[in-house]
C-alpha cells in the first residue's frame, strides 16, 4: 500500500478507470477535459542496456511528445472523414493495474504509476498487444483531479506501428 489514504487510493484508481473508459469508447473531447492545460504526453524510445540497472529509456529520443493543444488537433483530425488511419476506428481496450501512488505535494499532486496493457485491433492487421508502465502526474485543481503529465515506458525496444498508434 502506498503512503496515501485508502480513500485517495480509491479516488485515483476510479479516475484512471474512467479515463481509460473514455479512450476505449472514443470519447476524446471528454478525455481532453481530464487534462491540465499544461499536460504533456511523452513516449521515450526504449533502449536495451548492458547494465540491467541502467535506465531503459532514452533521454532525448521520443516516439511521441504531445501537448493538450496538439492532442486536440489530433482528435479534430480523427473526427474527419479523411483521417484514413482512424476510419474505420480501431477496437481499443485498456487494462490498467498495479497502481502505485507517491505523494508529491500533500493533497495536491501525486506521482502515479500503473502497468497497462493496450489491445488494438484494426484490419488488415491482427490484434496487437502493447505493454507499458505509465508514470503520471495527477494534480487536484478546484477539487477535481487532472492529468498533468504522462510518460509511457514501453516494454519493447522495437515496437511496430500499430503499437504506437494508441494513446496509452
Amino acid at each position, binding site marked *: 500500500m502506498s503512503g496515501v489514504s485508502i480513500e485517495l487510493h480509491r479516488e485515483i484508481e476510479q479516475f484512471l478507470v474512467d479515463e481509460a473508459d473514455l479512450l476505449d469508447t472514443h470519447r476524446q473531447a471528454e478525455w481532453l477535459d481530464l487534462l491540465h492545460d499544461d499536460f504533456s504526453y511523452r513516449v521515450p524510445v526504449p533502449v536495451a542496456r548492458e547494465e540491467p540497472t541502467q535506465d531503459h529509456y532514452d533521454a532525448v529520443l521520443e516516439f511521441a511528445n504531445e501537448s493538450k493543444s496538439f492532442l486536440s488537433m489530433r482528435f479534430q483530425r480523427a473526427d474527419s472523414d479523411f483521417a484514413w488511419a482512424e476510419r474505420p476506428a480501431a477496437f481499443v481496450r485498456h487494462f490498467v493495474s498495479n497502481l502505485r501512488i507517491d505523494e508529491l505535494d500533500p493533497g495536491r499532486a501525486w506521482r502515479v504509476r500503473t502497468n497497462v496493457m493496450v489491445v488494438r485491433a484494426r484490419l*488488415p492487421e491482427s490484434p496487437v498487444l502493447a505493454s507499458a508502465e505509465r508514470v503520471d502526474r495527477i494534480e487536484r485543481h478546484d477539487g477535481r483531479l487532472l492529468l498533468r503529465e504522462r510518460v509511457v515506458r514501453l516494454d519493447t525496444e522495437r515496437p511496430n*506501428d500499430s503499437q504506437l498508434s494508441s494513446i496509452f
Partner: protein
Amino acid sequence: MTLEQSVNIPRSYYRDQGALERELATIFGEGWIFIGHESEIPAAGDYVTRNMGANPVIMSRTEDGEIHVMLNSCTHRGTQVCKLAYGNTTAFRCGYHGWVFGADGDLKGVPGRRSLYGPEFDPSRLGLRQARVAVRCGLVFATWAQDGLSLEESLGDMLWYLQGLLELFSGGLEVHGGAHTVDVRGNWKIHVENFAGDGYHLKTAHKTMFDLGVVGTQAGTVEGFVVNDPHGHSLRAQYLADEGVPAVAPGYEDELLATIDADEQHRRFRERATVIHGMVYPNLLFITTAPLYFGTDADGAVAFTQLRQITPLDPHRHRVTYWTLVPKDASPDWKRRSYLYSTRQHGAASFFEADDLENFRRIDAGLGDSVAGVAPYNYELGLDVGERSTPPWTGPGRIVRQDLTEANQRNLVKRYLEQMEAGR
C-alpha cells in the same frame, strides 16, 4: 519534350519471397547501402548496430579514427557478437565460446588458443567480415562489393543535392540524440517509392494536415520540381512562388543563416523551399521541411531534416530506422524544437505517418494472388502533359519541370528492373 514510356513492375515483386531473395542478392548485395551518420560514433570505440539488407552489421570507430562496417556475426559459429543498439567498447566478445574481436573487427583473442588449436590456426583470416566503407556529406555508406563503382560514382548527380541538403551550413549537421527503429507493414519498395517523389498523394492521403493548416504550402502558391538520375536516385523540391517571401531557407534562426557557406546555386536550391524530399537508391530516404504550426505550444516555422533507412524484413514487412539531423551550430533550444517538429510531423507515431503507413498496409492487403492480382501498377502520371515552371536553381541530373508527375517513380522502377533482370 522527352519521349518517355511508362514502366511495368510485376505485382508479384511485392509479395514473393523469391523476388526478395533476388533483391537482397543484387540490389542490397552489390550496391552502396546507407548505414548511419558519422556523428553517431564520434569517439574511438563508439559503435552502433544496423541492418544492411538481411545482414546485421556493426558500424564502429577505431582508435585511429577509421570507420568500419562489419558483419555482426562471430567467425566461429556465427553468433551475434554485439547485442546493443549503440555503445562504446574496446572489444566485442562472443557470448558462445568467448572469441574476442576489436573495434576494427580483427580477431584479438581465442580462449585456449595455444593449447586447443594447432600451429596452422590463423586468427588473421578470422576477423569479422568487413564491408567496403565510404563517407560523403557525413553519411556513412557500405557495400559488400569489394570492387565496382566508388560511392561517388554511385551517387552520381545526387551528390550535388546531398551537398545542398547536408552541407549548407559551415558547421555541418549532426544526428540529434541517435536513431530508433520501428517495424511496419507493407513491402519495402512502397515506402521508398513514396519518398522518391510522390507529390500526388498529399492532397488525398494527408488532406487532414492541409485542412488543419500544418503544412508549409499554406503560406501561398507553390511550385514543385522533381529530379532524377540514372542510378535510381530521386528528389522532389517545392518552393514558395511569392517573390515577397524572404529568399532564405525557411525555419532557421538568423544566427544560423549567417553561417551558410554554399555557392549560389546551392543557396537557391534551399531558398523558399517548403519541402525537399527524396531517396538515394535503394533505401535511404530524406526529407527537410519547415512546418508552420504545431499546436499553440510550439508556434512558428521550425525546420527539420529527417533521414530514414528502409530494410525489408520479408515481402510484407519492413523496418524503418529514423534519424533527425540538426545543424551543429544551432542553439540547443532550436535543436529541441526541430526534433519535436520532426517527431510530431514525421515520427513513427505521428499522424502524417499514420496516413502513409495506412496506405502501405492497404497496398499490402490488396496485393491479390497470381490469378487476379496481376495487373501492374500504373505509372503514367505526368506523361505527355508538358512541363511547367522554371526551377529557381540550376543543377545536375534530369530536372523535370513538373511537380505532380511519376517521372521519379518511373526512373526508380526502371533502375530496379535493370538490376532484377540482370540477376536472372
